[in-house]
Each structure stands twice: as C-alpha cells, then as structure tokens.
C-alpha cells in the first residue's frame, strides 16, 4: 500500500507543496536562527579559543568575562611563575584603544600585547608576514577583516572602494606610530572591532598611563599536572582568579547568556518558527487527510485495516517531513555559505541538525497523530454517502 500512500500524497500537488513548504520553513527557522545564535555566542569567547597554547588563564578575581578587563600589577606575573606545577607564565595586555587612520578618523581597536620574548598568545593564522615581525620597530599585526574594513584607507577615487590596510602601512595608536608588519586571520569577536597585535611592552606604551596594565597571565602547566588542582593552587596562592581555557570559555559564555537578551530573542524566533511551522504543516497535513477521508473510507470498506491506514499516513508524514527537513537544512547551509565572508555570525554544528530534526519529527508526529485518530474513528459507511 506504500505506493498508494505516496501517490495519494503527491497527487494533490498544491497541498503536498503546502505541507513541504511549512515544514521547510519550520526546519529553516529552527536551524538558521540557532546557527546565528551559536555564531554570536561563539564570538563571545573566540578570543580565548584563538589563544591555543596556554592551559590556564589567570586574572583579577572580579573578572566576569573575557572583555571585562580588570588589570593586575606586573608583580602578579612573578608570583604565578613561582607556583609549583607552572611550566611558564606569560603576560598579556588586552584593551580597547583608538587608532587614528590615514583619513584622520578614529577607530576603536582591540589591542593585544604579547610577551616580548616568546610572543605567546599571538594570532592563530598569519596571512602575510610572520609573528616574529612584531620584533621590528613599531610593528603591529592587524586582523584581515579589520584591515579590509574598519581600518581600510580612503578610496583612491571618490566613491571607490576603500583600500585595505597592507604590510608597510602605518597608523597611529594613542599618538604613537604603528607599522603594519603582518596580516592575520582571527576569529571575529563579539565586539567586532579590529584586532591589533603587538608586543606587551609596546602595548603598554600605546595604552594610556595607568598603574596596572597586565590584563591576563597565560600559564602553561608542567607535563602531567592536574589542571583543576593547579588552578586551585594559583587561586589559593595569589588570590587571583584562575581558569582552565574551558572554564574561562564557560564563564564568558554564561555571562552573555545571563546578562544579555540574545538567548531570549533568538529563543523567541526559534519558538515562533516552530509554532508557525507546526501550525502550517500540521494544519495542511490534517486538511490533506480530511480531504482524503473518503478515500481512506473506501480503503477501509474494501478491507484495509486501521494498521495499514496508519502505516500509510505515517509514511506520508515521514516523506513530507524528510523533504521539508532536508530543504530547510539545505537552505540554512546555503545561507551560511553565502554569508561566510560577511560580518554575520553563523555556526552550524551537527547538534543543530539533530535539534531541528527532532523539531520537524515532532511536528510530523503531531500532524500524523491527529490525522490517524480521524482515520481510525472513521466509519467506512461514509463511502455510501454521496
């Protein structure tokens, strides 16, 4: 009876497309909106995940997330280095500074100062130049998105495209000259500001005079060290906060979840998508069954059991569900691909496929159940009514 069920389904093209479109819409909303949400949330901790080498981040105990900088005294670095189990500990400066561009305008940048000797904490991918070039006089490395957009030079012709910042170009950071010695690829951050890497000592010169300028201490544990135990020791010995990278990511992620409206806004979108998709697809599928009630009645009169009719309806629901889900997920993937080089945040992990798959399955199950109940209760004598 499977081919009969499928032919009944696709025979009414208008309704069939309506059901598929409803499910496609639901699947699209249930994947696209969470993918943007995840993309944005990933950006909140992208700075931490880009710094791959250290095991532990040490900071002021009041720091709530990665951009919540509460500087430390430089002497804290030496205290951390003295704790047993620490292989090495390096300073890192992170702050927002204004860069003066060639056209005289100002652009706020995230300036990251790396340990002068080791340059630990540098950008993950160098596109032009090398990280060692930071040792050159006034050298800075600029992220490629910043170089192309916010830090780009004025167009050569009026109305033309801005000219990307390149190696050899200069800019001013707090009235001090900075020469671009490299272009790096970094993961976009939540603030979406250009990221400028330089040495720790040079960053201190760029930054306004303050008593404390050390943002983070990056710690590598000795081989075989238990990281939670080491973080506990650092906290006990220094009174500072110490987190493994995962813990620091969690701290940042949870801060944004709790203190911004992002999850609620996206949650509402996803919920609305689910409800609208369920309403459209469920209602259309139910109407489709109602329209075919007489046909189901004919099959029932001819001896088809409720179980056979139930299987037919389930097959129809599975088919439209699979097609709608596939189209929705495909459109989301296409959307993500077309937005890959834009400022839009987008992250599409496999878990999202499972989530939307479960959502679409729920809609189909709901639509199928109400349809099945109608068919099971159907009196086959309906066939004799003209």
């Amino acid at each position: 009876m499977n081919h009969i069920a499928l032919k009944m389904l696709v025979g009414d093209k208008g309704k069939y497309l309506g059901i598929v479109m409803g499910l496609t819409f639901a699947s699209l909303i249930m994947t696209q909106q969470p993918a943007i949400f995840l993309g944005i949330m990933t950006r909140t901790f992208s700075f931490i995940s880009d710094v791959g080498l250290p095991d532990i981040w040490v900071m002021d105990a009041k720091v709530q997330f990665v951009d919540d900088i509460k500087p430390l005294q430089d002497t804290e670095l030496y205290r951390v280095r003295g704790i047993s189990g620490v292989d090495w500990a390096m300073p890192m400066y992170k702050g927002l500074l204004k860069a003066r561009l060639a056209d005289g305008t100002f652009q706020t940048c995230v300036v990251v100062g790396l340990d002068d000797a080791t340059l630990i904490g540098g950008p993950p991918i160098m596109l032009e130049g090398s990280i060692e070039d930071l040792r050159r006089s006034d050298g800075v490395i600029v992220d490629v998105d910043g170089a192309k957009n916010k830090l780009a030079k004025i167009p050569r012709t009026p109305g033309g495209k801005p000219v990307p910042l390149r190696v050899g170009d200069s800019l001013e950071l707090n009235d001090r000259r900075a020469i671009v010695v490299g272009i790096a690829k970094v993961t976009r951050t939540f603030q979406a500001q250009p990221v400028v890497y330089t040495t720790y000592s040079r960053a201190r010169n760029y930054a306004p005079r303050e008593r404390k300028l050390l943002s983070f201490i990056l710690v590598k544990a000795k081989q075989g060290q238990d990281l939670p135990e080491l973080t506990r020791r650092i906290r006990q010995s220094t009174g500072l906060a110490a987190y493994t990278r995962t813990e620091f990511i969690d701290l940042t992620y949870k801060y944004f979840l709790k203190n911004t409206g992002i999850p609620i806004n996206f949650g509402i979108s996803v919920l609305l998508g689910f409800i609208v998709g369920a309403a459209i697809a469920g209602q259309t599928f139910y109407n489709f069954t109602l329209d075919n009630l007489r046909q189901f009645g004919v099959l029932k009169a001819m001896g088809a059991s409720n179980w056979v009719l139930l299987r037919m309806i389930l097959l129809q629901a599975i088919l439209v569900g699979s097609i709608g889900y596939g189209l929705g997920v495909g459109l989301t993937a296409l959307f993500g691909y077309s937005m890959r080089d834009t400022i839009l945040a987008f992250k599409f992990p496999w878990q999202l496929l499972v989530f939307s798959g479960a959502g679409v399955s729920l809609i189909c199950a709901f639509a199928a159940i109400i349809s099945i109940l109608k068919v099971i209760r159907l009196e086959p004598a309906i066939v004799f009514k003209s």
Partner: protein
Amino acid sequence: MDANALAVRCQNIVKVYDTGDQKVTALNGINLDIAMGELMMLVGPSGCGKTTLISIIAGILNQDEGSCELFGENLIAMHSQDKLRFRARNIGFVFQAFNLLPSLTATENVSIPLIINGAKRIEAERKANIVLEQVGLGDRVTSLPSQLSGGQQQRVAIARALVHSPRLIVCDEPTSSLDHETGHTVMELLKDVALHKDRTLVVVTHDSRIFNFADRIAEMDDGHIVKIENTVMAH
C-alpha cells in the same frame, strides 16, 4: 429458499441512529434472503433505509438487533480483523460517486483490492489490466480518473469490484451519476461480467429505468421492506 444456496440472510434487522437530540429508526425489523447468483435491487424513497441495509449486508455497519448472515457467516459475531479479511475477500463495492482514488491510474485503482488481500503489486496490476480489458477499458489502463468520462470511471469501479473475484458485489446507485444510455451500458456490463451462479449482486437504486435488470426487487419504505417483486417471473 434453500438456506445453503443463500448469499445473504437478514433476520429481524433493526438499526437506530442516535443523533443526540433524537433517535431515528433507519431499519425496523428487516427480513430478507438473497440467493446465490441473484441480482437483487433495493428500491425506495430517500431515507427509507436502503443504504443502511447494504452497509449492514456488506459488514461495514453493525445492526442493533437481529442477525445478518453472509454466506453462512454471522458478521457481527466475527472478530474485527476476521471481519476485515472476510470483507476484503468476499465483497466488492460499486459506488454512486465511483470513489476512485484520483491520483491513481485505472490499473492502480483496480489493483487495490488485490493488494489489500496481500497480492504483490506487479501481479495485482497484471490481473487488474485483464479485468479492465474485460470491461472494455484495455486502452485506458494508464488513465487517471480525471481523464475518463463518468461511464468509463464507473467501469473502472466495476473492474475494481470484480478483480478479486468476490462472492457479493454491493452497488450503491451505480447509474445515478450517468446518463440513461451509459447507465444502461453499465448495468449490462454488471449483469454480463459480474453476475454468475457463484456471485450475488445487491443494487441500491432510484433509477426505475434499470429495474428490468433485477431478478428481484425489494421495495423499502420507512425502514421496512414493503414488497418484494420477482421480476424474472414478470419477464
């Protein structure tokens, strides 16, 4: 009438519809025997209980009182699954509105009873095409119902009722959607192809122009059979 030669034996059938506000007695003590190989017509005004009676005879509606035996089997006493199987094997249906599945071809529509009875699709369609040939639609096997005339659709419906060789065919107003000539052709077809000594036809109709095809006519009114006329004798 010899009980062994009976296709249908209805005894004191009562059926009451409960519409909430009131109870409507559709059948009130129906007694009717239909012999094997007989073409019985049920006639009467609208609402007299004809359709209710063939629904009970066909086992798709349960009576409230009385018994209805089909080929010696008491349908109401059967387990629902056994009843379904019995119906699938032994009964064919021809409806007023044809009730063909609109998205299936003639072959696919006709093959449904065989598939319900467990036949493989290819075998079912092969047999369906043979029966379609018998009803004169050998050249329209791939047509959808919407591509067929009313008469052709009814012939497909007859082929569907015949394909699994049932012992009883119930027809509900088989000619009322057709013009006189086509209706006449359909009845000739039913009588020639469907009726034989091992198969019984029960036809509900208003159409007095086809009364002459009946072996017997049971006239109903207000839930009773008021008269049974033997037309074979009259012919």
